């Protein structure tokens, strides 16, 4: 009731119906994409790297649902299989970044002192680079390939999470319940694990989906520059990049389907993130 009295003059959100819609649509898209990735072999008659001996650049319809690309590979099958790589790398990389970043942020934020100073100066240095530039450098260092890209993208993002969690922890550690835990004799590790960790993840939950979308775009950008996944592995970014000249010639099917797939998946993450954000905002107002 007290909350209602605090409510503003402007037309409020209709109890987050739009947020809910965003979350549903966003996760719906991602679930469909994940299913497509999992069942890709069942949904396509061609292998993702299988070359059609009868020729390249076949138009959609007929033998190939979405035509074939410049290598004579089936676009539909590749678009589906690419979901494994793109979603896999994005989600794993962000997960890794969250784990590492959270850990560092937790340590820096709660312990403070020199640990904080050292960790945060390192984070400062990493954050002095725009993320894509850093991703370029790290991928040039590690090379392409699934796990290297996971590490690349995770390494680029972890500092941001470290900073985010640290800031959160620094606020939280002044909270009464942390003082309560201290006076209840909880150990430092116990406080970090039992009290700070679960509560400091709140902003991470919102950022992570948005970050997944960003990771997919970064991956595509790296592939476009030839620093991403090695051919002929099906990956949306490299498919788009290979198909650019086809678009100019009117052969839309080699790059538009992977482009749309990428767009839709990134959009899925964005919608989910935006929805979660709105819900979090609404919650914090309450």
């Amino acid at each position, binding site marked *: 009731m007290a909350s209602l009295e*605090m*409510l*503003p*003059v*402007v*037309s*409020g*959100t*209709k109890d987050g119906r*739009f947020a809910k819609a965003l979350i549903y649509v966003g996760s719906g898209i991602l679930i469909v994409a994940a299913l497509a990735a999992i069942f890709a072999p069942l949904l396509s008659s061609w292998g993702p790297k299988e070359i059609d001996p009868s020729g390249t650049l076949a138009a959609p319809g007929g033998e190939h649902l979405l035509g074939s690309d410049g290598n004579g590979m089936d676009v539909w099958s590749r678009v589906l299989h690419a979901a494994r790589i793109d979603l896999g790398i994005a989600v794993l990389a962000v997960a890794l970044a969250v784990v590492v970043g959270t850990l560092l942020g937790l340590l820096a934020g709660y312990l403070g002192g020199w640990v904080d100073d050292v960790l945060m*100066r*390192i984070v*400062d*240095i990493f954050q*002095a*680079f*725009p*993320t*894509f*530039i850093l*991703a*370029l*450098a790290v991928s*040039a*260092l590690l*090379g392409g390939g699934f796990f290297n890209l996971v590490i690349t993208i995770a390494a680029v993002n972890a500092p941001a999470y470290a900073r985010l969690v640290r800031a959160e922890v620094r606020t939280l550690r002044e909270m009464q319940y942390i003082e309560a835990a201290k006076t209840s004799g909880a150990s430092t590790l116990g406080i970090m694990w039992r009290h700070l960790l679960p509560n400091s993840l709140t902003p991470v939950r919102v950022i992570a989906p948005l970050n997944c*979308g960003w990771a997919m*775009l970064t991956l*595509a*950008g790296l592939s*476009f*520059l030839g620093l991403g996944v090695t051919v002929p592995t099906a990956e949306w*970014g490299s498919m*788009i*990049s290979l198909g*650019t000249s086809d*678009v*100019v010639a009117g052969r839309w099917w080699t*790059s538009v389907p992977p*482009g749309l797939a*990428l*767009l*839709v998946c*990134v*959009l899925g993450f*964005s*919608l989910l993130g*935006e929805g979660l*954000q709105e819900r979090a*905002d609404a919650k914090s*107002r309450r």
Partner: protein
Amino acid sequence: MRILRFVGRRLLQLIPVLLGVVVLTFLLVRVLPGDPIRSILGPNATEADADAARARFGLDQPIWKQFLDYLGGLVTGDFGTSIQSGASVTGEMALRLGPTLELVFIAVSIAIVLAIWLGIWSARRADTVGDHSVRIFALFGNSIPEFWLGLVLILVGYAALGWFPAPSGRVDPDTNLTPLTGADLIDALITGNGPAISSSAAHLVLPVLTLVIGVLAPLLRSVRASALEVLRSEAYAAAAAHGLPERTLLRGYLRRATLVRLPSLAALVFGTALGSTVLVEYVYSWQGFGQWALRGLLYRDYPVVQASVLIIAFAYVLVFLIADVVHAWLDPRVKI
């Protein structure tokens, strides 16, 4: 005065960070696989030739010596000599920085203005169809890879409609623009070269649009959320409850309070745009910093990579500093 002291202090704080960046990039380029010398020599070169070339660039020295030399050079503003071109990196960089910064600054400025306008518009109509569509459209823009978007815009704006000049170069060479800063539009404005102004502006449209579409969403999201927060704040409610007219409310109570948190995000977005230029420049034949740095990276041109990364980092932290100053100026609660 207070601002100056603040800036001074922040600049001092930057020194360790930049030193870290210097060390990091110096080490990074040296652990990259690939030999910078081989690529300039051609395969017929002997080991002796390679050694001679190495000596020419000081790469035969022990690492710590190379680092000290590099550091010594930095102090005097000398970024070394490009292995690929043999020219001074400082000079090359000066030529490349202008076009890229022009692109990024214009794009980010437009994105910020647009985000402020749309964000406040959207927040004032929170949860209406208009608000929802603005947000969804921004998210769409945010979800398209820049290079693909760039290509589509070229296809539409240049190939199909012919509204924009060919995506090569940044200004029509027949306008005889005198280069001053490297940022063509600025140069054209300074020299009062009418045709060059319109030509460079026309060349800017598509790449700027590409970047704007790419970075609008996060800015918009932030402005809208802030505006909503202000609109829902007790402070705004109080002003409204005291019957202040719409215009006073918008100007005095909504706008500035909304923008308080924007600068640091804008700085972040500046970084994103700076990163995106590597791709956008390629698509639009925009020979700027990104292309230069990328080529340096691919050919392991150590001095070029070191300098470009350092300068990007420097520009980035500088933008963050500016953002902090603007933030302090916008938000009286910030102590500086």
